[in-house]
């Protein structure tokens, strides 16, 4: 046979070789499949099924009713209680996410210094995260108890006016945000710390040689170089913050976010709609509206955190690629 023909017809593979080929190509997919199978069953299916539910008149106990199209979305968006929950959620979200991320970054920067017993301190900041959220909420609810809690006692001792933590909107948001901050600041600090640890030390050294002080190095090197991690932390805090449920629920377990819905969040509104009010269709619609809100806010935050970090990075001369590599090798 000519070489041309030989080239055309592939050499006959043995079964073993075929199997090996197949193994080479397909195995990775099998390795990663457990996650995707789990996700399809426990994640994707409920998400899609929720769309289906949201389009029907769906009574919690009696089940599926008539097809109503987008009426559930319309009703929810026209419900003042939804918007009340919406504003409460954002209020609590801002009161928790912003101070939390600032504190976490500062704590991470401090832990990033050469301090004694660094592992001890790093573990300590994670302790609040280990505590069960329910326990945290119960303890803080006692601390903020308007009638005889320690804060109320301190205010009374100082002759300051009483604060109605459980009744007035802003104080209740503050109390709930405190629980969230207490729990999550250390967690975020550790993630940011990991990112800071990955910054080549030589960059700091050369900046120091150039006369940059601590603050300047933090602002112009640390912040820009942990940008991807910062974006990750911002996005996860956004998702968590907008879905906040445990803390406001336990702040007053007898109601769904306060007797007057002073601290009813969107998820609590959803819960109230689904269970005591038994309107599953509208609860599903609310879930989808929340989903869209989270995506929207996530995108805005992504853009914002990119912008802020990029502006900063413009002010500093990026380290040369070669020095990068050298450090990467030596460290």
């Amino acid at each position, binding site marked *: 046979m000519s070489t041309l023909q030989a080239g055309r017809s592939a050499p006959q593979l043995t079964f073993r070789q075929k199997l090996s080929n197949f193994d080479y190509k397909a195995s990775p997919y099998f390795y990663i499949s457990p996650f995707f199978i789990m996700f399809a069953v426990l994640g994707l299916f409920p998400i899609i099924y929720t769309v289906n539910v949201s389009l029907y008149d769906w009574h*919690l*106990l009696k*089940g*599926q009713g008539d097809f109503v199209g987008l009426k559930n979305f319309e009703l929810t968006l026209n*419900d003042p209680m939804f918007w009340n929950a919406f504003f409460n959620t954002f209020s609590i979200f801002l009161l928790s996410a912003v101070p939390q991320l600032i504190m976490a970054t500062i704590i991470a920067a401090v832990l990033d210094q050469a301090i004694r017993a660094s592992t001890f301190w790093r573990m300590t900041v994670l302790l609040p995260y280990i505590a069960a959220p329910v326990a945290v909420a119960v303890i803080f609810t006692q601390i903020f108890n308007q*009638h005889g809690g320690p804060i109320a006692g301190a205010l009374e001792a100082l002759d300051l006016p009483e604060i109605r933590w*459980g009744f007035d909107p802003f104080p209740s948001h503050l109390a709930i945000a405190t629980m969230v901050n207490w729990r999550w600041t250390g967690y975020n600090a550790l993630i940011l710390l990991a990112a800071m640890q990955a910054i080549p030390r030589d960059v700091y050294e050369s900046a120091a040689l150039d006369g940059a002080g601590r603050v300047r190095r933090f602002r112009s090197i640390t912040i820009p170089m942990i940008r991807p991690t910062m974006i990750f932390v911002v996005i996860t805090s956004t998702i968590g913050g907008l879905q906040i449920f445990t803390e406001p629920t336990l702040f007053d377990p007898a109601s769904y976010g306060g007797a007057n819905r002073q601290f009813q969040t969107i998820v609590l509104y959803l819960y109230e709609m689904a*269970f*005591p009010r*038994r309107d599953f269709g509208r609860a599903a619609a609310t879930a989808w509206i929340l989903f869209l809100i989270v995506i929207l806010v996530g995108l805005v935050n992504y853009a914002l955190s990119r912008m802020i970090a990029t502006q900063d990075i413009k002010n500093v001369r990026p380290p040369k690629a070669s020095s990068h590599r050298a450090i990467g090798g030596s460290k």
Partner: protein
Amino acid sequence: MTVKLSRRTASVAAIAGSAALILSGCSSTDNGGSSDKPITLTITTFGTMGIDVNYAAYEKENPGIKIEATNLADGGAGRDDAYAKIAAGTGLSDVVAIEEGWLSTIAAVSDAFVDLRDHGIEDTKDQWLDWKYKQGTDAEGRVFGAGLDIGPQGLCFRGDLFEAAGLPGDREGFAAAIGGEDATWESFFEFGQQYTAASGKAFYHNPSFMWNSFVNQQEEGYYKKDGVTLNIEGNEAMKAQLDLIVENANIGAGLGGWGVGEQAKNDEFAVYVCPSWMLGVVSGYYDAGTTGTGWDFADVLPGGAANWGGAFLGVSESSEHKEEAAKLALWLAAPAQQAAAFEAAGPFPSTIEGQELVADSTSAFFNDAPVGQIFTNRAKGVVAQVKGEEDSVIQDNVFGPVLDRISQGEITDGDTAWNEAITLLNQLVP
């Protein structure tokens, strides 16, 4: 819609049932356990129902049965838990406590519970108060709940505090001071004003208790007798009562909800409207066995007799041991056990014989008050109101917030209060 539910429930039950068969090696014949193969029956209750004192006795009498009990904080928690599990078609305990406030919702999906007529409830039908038995029966005549307690109401009060304020502090004296059998809400609040003026302390902890009692006293509550038509807008009596509550907000302590034990111990308020099951809540604020706290119980209710609440026991259709579970539920709802629960926590029996059994009982916690006799008196002429499907939503989420704001001094006139309630009503119950 109902057909759909039954089918879903049936299939889930079938799956659960077959899983159970496989797990138990196909030996589950539902004939009751034996001591070497015990059957575990789960039961979910809420609040202080007192029936838990009977579990040990039942286990002892029935060696093959083990009872696994869950008690939820209050009726609201019980409601949400039951709804979620009925919706899921699985997860309900074998025996489930149902509160009167959400009974009508359960009645609409009563096929989630077994018909107790299949388990012989009709044989003992006559032991219950007539209306109590009817409440646990749905439109098709299925009996889905065995009556447990009823909620006739008296007044829990702090005799020591009244006496310190120069007011009558003994049971008869206090009852007489607010008008005895002719006591009205006006005369009750008048007494409260005197108390607050003399002592400088709040009279009651939260107006929602007065409100609920008042609504329960009416012939028709949030719903008309048909259980479907709302009875709120344009209801002059309700409006007037809300006005009265606003006028007397100054003698309230502005405390919320049920968990006010610390404040009770600190003498921050002096009176509770006490349906029978409330006795357990009040004594529960103190350590077990505590007496001499100053709490007492009076044979009086402003505005006349009323029933507030009362529970039922249902057996879930998804139970693996329906026969055994029904047996347990009917036993727990029998007169002797109702009486034992009353002695333990105060819920007043819904059976005639049960009431006779407790007629002479006294409560050491409430200054040796003859609670059995008082509740027997308070239960005279009581007939439960017809509750509608959204009754508990209206109580908790329409009037609850408004009363809360009144007690916090945020609403100071009756018209505003009423209008806010109507606005909420229209938003929540369209």
